[in-house]
């Protein structure tokens, strides 16, 4: 592991020694987690693996390689379905963090407050896991299992994300509530993806909420309620009710109480839906 050469995935996985060494990507979670301790060595530095920097179309999917940073995502030309993910990217830490941190690392860190998870849930992202034995693909919901817990098996790494191509008429929005402008851990965040048909009706709706449960989750009842609604309706926000939030189980912590988080999420979802109608009427 030296020099500036990158290495083949297979060779690197062999070095990975069945997962007995830690994985390093952008380092933005790896180093802070060390506290005052020196960094372990060796590590599997996936930023050196050939091909994992790729971001682009792969068949019916968009593929985000495991070494793609948030800045690279923001700078990439992507369809409107990715707008929400890009909004999240710009709110992650700061530019100094976005230049290092990877999209995939945000998922693997499996923090309840990971800003990347709700928009990727709302995009129906799938996670590609690679081991010396082969490759498997899991829906994101099946990948993050709990606080700091993922479905990764020993010896396996995430090599990329797959996001299905969306119709061009897709509205996508991310909202983050934090108590200051930059470098802030979210109190709550919401992400919506609305696919809109030729008549302006919502034909597919995905809504995800973060920092309000051990793992960010989708609100299927709200999604169902939105199906068939008129996306141009200025009162689209009225579709959301408190009952739709029942899958959430926020905790009380220093950033906010359960009660406040529920109230805030309700408001953020309403605003996101109002934005949809507002922007459509504008254009």
């Amino acid at each position, binding site marked *: 592991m030296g020099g500036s050469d990158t290495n083949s995935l297979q060779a690197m996985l062999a070095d990975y020694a069945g997962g007995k060494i830690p994985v390093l990507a952008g380092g933005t979670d790896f180093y802070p987690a060390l506290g005052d301790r020196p960094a372990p060595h060796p*590590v599997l*530095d996936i930023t050196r693996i050939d091909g994992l920097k790729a971001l682009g179309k792969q068949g019916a999917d968009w593929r985000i390689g495991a070494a793609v940073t948030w800045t690279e995502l923001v700078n990439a030309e992507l369809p409107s379905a990715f707008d929400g993910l890009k909004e999240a990217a710009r709110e992650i830490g700061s*530019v100094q963090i976005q230049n290092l941190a990877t999209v995939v690392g945000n998922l693997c860190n499996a923090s309840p407050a990971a800003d990347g998870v709700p928009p990727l849930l709302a995009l129906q992202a799938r996670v590609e896991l690679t081991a010396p034995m082969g490759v498997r693909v899991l829906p994101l919901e099946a990948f993050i299992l709990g606080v700091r817990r993922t479905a990764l098996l020993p010896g396996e790494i995430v090599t990329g994300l797959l996001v299905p191509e969306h119709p061009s008429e897709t509205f996508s929005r991310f909202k983050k509530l934090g108590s200051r402008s930059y470098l802030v851990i979210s109190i709550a965040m919401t992400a919506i993806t609305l696919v809109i048909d030729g008549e302006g009706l919502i034909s597919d709706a995905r809504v995800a909420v973060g920092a309000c449960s051990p793992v960010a989750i989708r609100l299927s009842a709200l999604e169902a309620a939105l199906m068939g609604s008129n996306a141009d309706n200025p009162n689209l926000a009225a579709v959301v009710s408190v009952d739709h939030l029942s899958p959430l189980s926020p905790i009380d912590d220093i950033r906010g109480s359960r009660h406040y988080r529920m109230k805030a999420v309700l408001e953020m979802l309403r605003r996101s839906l109002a934005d949809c109608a507002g922007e459509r009427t504008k254009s």
Partner: protein
Amino acid sequence: MKNHQEKSQGHRTSFVLNDRLASVDASPTLRLSEVLRELINVRDVKVGCNAGDCGACTVLVDGLPVCSCLLAVSQIAGKRVETVAGLMANEPLTGKLGSSFLAHGAAQCGICTPAMLVSATALLRNNRNPDGPAIRDALGGVLCRCTGYRKIIDAVLNWDQLPQQEDGQVGASIVRLDGQAKIKGTDQFADDGAPADALLLRVVRSPYHRADFELGDLGAYRRANPGISLVLSARDIPGENLFGVIPGYIDQPVFAENYTRFKGESVACVVGDPDVIKHLDLDKFPIVWTERQADLTPALAQAEGAEQLHLGKEKNLMCEGRVQRGNATEGLANAHVTAKGRFETGFIEHAYIEPEAGFAVRIEDRIEIHGCTQAPYMDRDGIAAIMDLEPSAIRILPSAVGGGFGSKIDLSFQPFIALAAWMSDRPVRITYSRTESMQSTTKRHPSEITLQIGADKTGKICGFDFVGVFNTGAYASWGPTVANRVPVHASGPYSIANYRAVSRAIYSNCAPAGAFRGFGVPQSAIAQESLMDELASHLNMDRLQFRIRNALDNGEPTVTGQVFETSVGIKPCLESLQDNWHKALAAAERFNRAAEKSGAPERRGVGVASGWYGCGNTSLPNPSRIKAGIGASGGIFLHQGAVDIGQGSNTVITQIFASALGVAVDQICILGADTDVTPDAGKTSASRQTFISGNAARLSGENLRNQILRLTNATTDATLTISGSLVSVDVGTGEKSQINLRDLAEDQNGYVLSAEEVYDPPTKPMDKNGQGDPYALFGYAAQMVELTVDTRLGTVELLNFTAAHDVGKAINPSLVEGQVHGGIAQGIGLALLEEFIPGRTENLHDYLIPTIGDVPPIETIIIEVNDPHGPYGAKGLGEHVLIPTAPAILNAIADACGAKVRKLPATPERILQAITKTSKEAKTNG
């Protein structure tokens, strides 16, 4: 380029550093920041948190700004790394930015300046005309605790236009005299100067808020860990195992003995080979802990059966303060309207970007301590007592200080390295981690304040009754000062005949609370100024007019009975806000009418608050001494011991001295601070340096000038010119006298002319009711803020501040503005964001200070009501600047949406709760 070997894990990484090939042998996962600083001595890269929370270590990698503390050195193989020193040398854009930073006053302490310049360079390379939002996004990841960011934004916006420079006399906005080193990254901060062969010291600290402990076999531990040269604990202290800042309250051990009183308290330290010490797992240190029930609040510490923290301090009451005048009870009984409330604030962390650090060297029978401090002579005397040495055996050499704000007045790291250097006879170095700094150093006192104020029908305050309880933590530190200052200041700058204010400082099992910009006054102002708004509303009076109506005036007694005949400046401050105030009120009304109509959730509000602050110690001697000399070849040397922690004393003291002597600032060479070289100019605290050390500098300058005038029999208004060894004195009649300095005898310092002057402000003791003249002068302030509240999320958007400050005379108006901006930023943090919770918010991602996106535009109005005691009329300013900010914000929130937040910080959640409460009350009442 010098290369070192990280032992046993060496691996060569080559990269381009500042346009030159570099190659290091290091463990591949070593942080880039550590490689740069420790292996190849690139010390212009600063480390503030090691967690990506502060951005101080920002460098460019292939042109992109990244936190170098989050990058493995192996990840930069073959890449291009640029740091501020390289950019200043190679990138013209950075050179221009650097000059712009200095010209705009965008660098104060300078610890964040390298990262700001590096990040701004990356922005300008892609966009030569960035707007405000682009600048904020580019710099959002770099924290600054001094400047309030506005001057940084101005400096980047106007990077290619430099304002005209002025001459440097009193009243001129000259660039800070110590600025060049700050933009080039060459300033030596606390962690930048350690010799390469220094041993490393780490401190073993209590993991519990209160615990008993027993040290194991330290000798066996040392033998089992080759590379450890010393393990030190209480029994190794030659003198007193105690330190503190106020006589009678010296109560904190260097190393706890058998019992720790707060989480993070030191119990021992290990010293040795840096590579070994760095890798030690201190959890394996031989110590057995028994955790005990801890009392973290005054209520718990004073409850029945609570354990007493210190002998002789019953009920954990450390001390009380009181000021009483007239009859508060009667005054309130006769009031036409009253307002009453209970207010709470939490611990506030200073959060300077530079954690404590330094190194000590034994030189025969003396110890030299290099590092960050606000109080070199107090450090010297404190270390002397701990080491059982004469004070003259201790030399304190303050480094550049990467922010202080009060916490670096107290000893922290110094005793450990002094002891270790003394015992090992080797240089010993220490660097606090961010967590260690936050756990163990002093904080702003949490407060619980109960206050009632009454006013008569005409709107005149007629009664004021204040009780403040302050959590002083495990040790006294500056707690007694807080207890004394608060009752004197709790009135605010108002004339109040019937007044009672009592303060109590209570010990608890928290980190010691000590000095923090304002010594308790920002907390009391929150209660007092919030209730002023309520009284105005009860009286149906304009809130600003109500304040003007009650403002203290010349010739009126303060609540301690002190009378200032000419220098009270609060009314001019308040009156200067009137235009903006009325415009803001009208704008808010229009905005809210439109919002109600459209159903938008935002509501706009306007808030105002006043503040005052007495400069210098409270009714105690507080001298500053300044020495200066002129050499035979015409060099003018100012021995400037007033430590510059970013606020600008190096510049202001020099401006005063230059004006008094009658020469240009750029002719003066500044020496110090260094206790072997500079006489005692006191501590940098209590807004005293401009006033007190400034006066000593003025007297020294005048003394030198008079000596020269006497030598030539010239009149006092003569013009001096010192050019080489020739001094010309021009009395204006066309006649010029000359002295050749080489004709004069040199003293033992090599000076042919010298002066050393002391200034001690005139104060008078206070009696048992707090009546007396505690301060020679006060400074005054009034600030207003416009903001919007999102009434459904509880979030606040600050729109702008107008800050009026009576500084007597602005010695350097740009530095005055810098202080105002920085104080407002800290006030914003106090109001909306910050709370240190021992054991929970011990890092800069859980403890949130304002970022560049959180401080709105600030208009500064400088008021100059000269003070007869101040140098050229100047008053202090450093602490006044944050006193009105938090209450102004709370008042504006209440104005916007009715929410009365009584417990700080006013988080979105608390604001939303207060809104709900208000609307419920309105419903019940309606």
